[in-house]
C-alpha cells in the first residue's frame, strides 16, 4: 500500500472509542508525527476514557492523566521537571478536548503561552463535551443542538475562535487542522515539534454520536467541513497568516449541515446565518493573510 503518513502506530487497536471516532484518528496521526519520544498530558475528555481503564492503555507513549482544567499546567510541570533533570528532548504534548481547552482549560493554557512553555498543545475539537454526553462547549457552533442547547433553544452564541485567541497571545506557532486532511495535520505537528516555545494546534475531529450521524459518515463530515469553508485550514507563524488549503469554490454549507442530526432543525434562514458567518470569517482571514504578509513579508512565516 501507499502510505501518505508515517506507518508507525502509537495507538493500539482495542480502544473503547465509539465506532468511527475521529478523536482516535487525531491522536493516531499526532503521534505518527511526533514519534515515540513524547509524553502526553491528558485532561478529562473522551480520550481519558478511550485510552482504556486501569490496568490498560492504548497509547504507546507515556500518558499522564490530569484534571480537566490543567492540561497546559501539568504539561508545563512535566516539561520543567524533565528540563531540570537534563532532558530537553522529549516532546511534551497537552492533548485536550475543546471543552477542556476553550472553556475550563483556557486559563492554564493562556498562562502557559504567556510564559512560552516549550510544549505542544493540541485541542481535538469535536465541538461539545462528548465524554459527558454531548453538552454545549464554547466551541459548539451556532445553531447546534446539544443536550444543554435543546432543539427549541439551540446554541445562539458563536463558536469561540481559539486559534485567533492564540494569535492574540502572540504565540509562536498556531494552526488549524482537520482529521480528514491527515497529511496536512501531520505536517503541522512535525513543524510544531521543531519549534521551541508554546505551539497550539486545533484539529477538527468528528464524533458520530455527538454530531448525531452514522459512524461511516465520520470522515465525510469532516471533509465537507473543509470543503464548505466551515473549517478553514491555516496556520500562523510568528504572526504571519498562511492559508493551507483554499477550496476553489465553497460547497454550500447545507451539505455539511444536513449530514448531521445536530443541525437537522435549522431553518433556511439559519443556514443563511451560517453561510454569512463562513463568508465573513474567510474575508477576514484572507485580509489577515494579506495584512501580515505585507507587514512581515512572506518569508517571516517560513522563518
Amino acid at each position, binding site marked *: 500500500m501507499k502510505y501518505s503518513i508515517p506507518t508507525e502506530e502509537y495507538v493500539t*487497536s482495542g480502544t473503547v472509542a465509539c465506532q468511527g471516532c475521529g478523536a482516535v484518528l487525531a491522536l493516531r496521526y499526532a503521534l505518527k508525527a511526533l514519534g515515540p519520544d513524547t509524553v502526553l498530558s491528558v485532561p478529562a475528555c473522551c480520550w481519558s476514557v478511550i485510552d482504556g481503564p486501569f490496568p*490498560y492503555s492504548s497509547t504507546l507513549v507515556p500518558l499522564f492523566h490530569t484534571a480537566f482544567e490543567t492540561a497546559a499546567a501539568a504539561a508545563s510541570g512535566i516539561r520543567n521537571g524533565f528540563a531540570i533533570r537534563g532532558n530537553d528532548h522529549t516532546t511534551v504534548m497537552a492533548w485536550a478536548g475543546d471543552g477542556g481547552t476553550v472553556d475550563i482549560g483556557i486559563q492554564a493554557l493562556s498562562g502557559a503561552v504567556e510564559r512560552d512553555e516549550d510544549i505542544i498543545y493540541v485541542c481535538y475539537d469535536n465541538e461539545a463535551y462528548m465524554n459527558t454526553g454531548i453538552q454545549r462547549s464554547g466551541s459548539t457552533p451556532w445553531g447546534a443542538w446539544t443536550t444543554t442547547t435543546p432543539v427549541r433553544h439551540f446554541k445562539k452564541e458563536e463558536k469561540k475562535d481559539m486559534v485567533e485567541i492564540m494569535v492574540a497571545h502572540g504565540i509562536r506557532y498556531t494552526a488549524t487542522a482537520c482529521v480528514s486532511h491527515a497529511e496536512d495535520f501531520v505536517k503541522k505537528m512535525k513543524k510544531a515539534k521543531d519549534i521551541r516555545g508554546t505551539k497550539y494546534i486545533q484539529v477538527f475531529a468528528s464524533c458520530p454520536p455527538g454530531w448525531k450521524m452514522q459512524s461511516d459518515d465520520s470522515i465525510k463530515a469532516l471533509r465537507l467541513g473543509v470543503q464548505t469553508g466551515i473549517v478553514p485550514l491555516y496556520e500562523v507563524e510568528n504572526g504571519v497568516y498562511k492559508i493551507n488549503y483554499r477550496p476553489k469554490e465553497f460547497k454550500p454549507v447545507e451539505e455539511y449541515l444536513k449530514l448531521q442530526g445536530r443541525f437537522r432543525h435549522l431553518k433556511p434562514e439559519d443556514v443563511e446565518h451560517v453561510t454569512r458567518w463562513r463568508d465573513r470569517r474567510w474575508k477576514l482571514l484572507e485580509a489577515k493573510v494579506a495584512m501580515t504578509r505585507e507587514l512581515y513579508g512572506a518569508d517571516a512565516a517560513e522563518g
Partner: protein
Amino acid sequence: MPNKHYVPLKNIDDIPTMAKTLGTMLVNETGSWRNVRPIISNENCIQCGICWKYCPDMAITEDAEGFPVVNLTYCKGCGVCAAECPKDCIEMVEEVR
C-alpha cells in the same frame, strides 16, 4: 477466556501504589462490537492506503501483496473504510454469530 494481553490481578498486593497501567488495550477485542463487517474485494483495489489511513481502530493491515486486510479481532464495523475507499472495494455486510 482472557487473551494474552490480559493482566491478571488477584488482590491488593498485585496492584501498583498509584494507578499505573500494566498492559495495552489489545486486551479489548472490539471485534465483538460489530454489527456489520467490512469485506474487501481486491479486484479494483489500487492499494492507495486510504482505508488504512482512516480506520479509527487500526484494524487494517497489509497482506504480502500489498492489499489491505481487516483485523476482525478489533474491527468495530464503523464502515469508515467502506465509505472512504475511492474504488468502492469494501462492502459492509451484516455480522452473524
